[in-house]
């Protein structure tokens, strides 16, 4: 089974993840890959509690590819979550393999120069660069907050972004 969901979510682990996504994609554990999260001990504790019954591993970006390789080789099922698109673009660049499909959910924390793409996705020019890098690397980018939301693609959202 290995990695069943790779997701960008700036709230990292919360109700939509543990209640909704786990119901449609059963998982044993969550891997969080983010330098920002890994450096924040209080947040790590909160995320551990938020993960509930799921096991949780929190890794820096540099540790990411090795953790992903272990997850891919495991008989267990994993969610891989990071809090920015840039993190997944960098992870892809340094050889992290999370299965070639990237779900983008919540991105609505306050950031500079964002445009509201709807359904809790706010993108800025830096995100666009990172998304283009991911698309060029052959990653299938799927914007989908909840499992019963329809999927929006990057070309679709890029056209919308450029028109705004």
């Amino acid at each position, binding site marked *: 089974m290995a990695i069943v969901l790779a997701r960008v979510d700036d709230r990292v682990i919360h109700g939509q993840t543990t*209640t*909704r996504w786990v*119901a449609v994609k059963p998982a044993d*554990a969550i891997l969080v890959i983010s330098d920002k999260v890994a450096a924040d001990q209080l947040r790590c*504790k909160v995320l*551990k509690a938020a993960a509930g019954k799921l*096991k949780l591993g929190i890794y820096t970006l540099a540790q990411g590819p090795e953790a992903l390789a*272990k*997850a891919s080789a495991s008989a267990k099922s994993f969610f891989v979550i990071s809090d920015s698109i840039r993190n997944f673009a960098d992870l892809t660049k340094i050889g992290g393999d999370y299965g070639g499909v990237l779900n983008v959910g919540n991105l609505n924390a306050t950031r500079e120069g964002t445009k509201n793409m709807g359904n809790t996705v706010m993108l800025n020019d830096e995100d666009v660069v990172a998304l283009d890098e991911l698309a060029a690397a052959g990653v299938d980018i799927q914007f989908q907050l909840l499992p019963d939301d329809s999927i929006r693609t990057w070309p679709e959202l890029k056209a919308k972004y450029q028109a705004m």
Partner: protein
Amino acid sequence: MNIVVASHGKLCEGLVDALHMMVAEPAPIVAVGLDEHGIDNFRERLVAAVEASLAQGKTLIMSDLIGGTPYNESYTLLLQHPEDLRVVAGANFPMLVEVGIAAADSDDLDEVVGIALEAGRAGVVAAELPEDEPLDEDDLF
């Protein structure tokens, strides 16, 4: 099936509003709150909502408090429509999320009531302080 959330004040509206953050396409759902316009006004709105709901299919009323007016008025309706209506009390958010999903695909009232009771009870917990244990990678992978 359809859901009617009946409560004191705006609790029902708040629950339905929150549901849409967790479930994109829940079962058809309406909120009816008891407010300063009093019990007769509430009863009229509840009866209208439930009758409209029953015209579309089976209906579950989620009320906020056992023995409260929203529950009591719902119970009156249950006695009139025992085949197509069920009533639960103690509605909370974990209950509504699970019911919102289950009711979208089911017309089995007893099954959905069972889901409501289980989710409502399981969702009530006290936060526990974490144990200070280092990450065990053998356990993780």
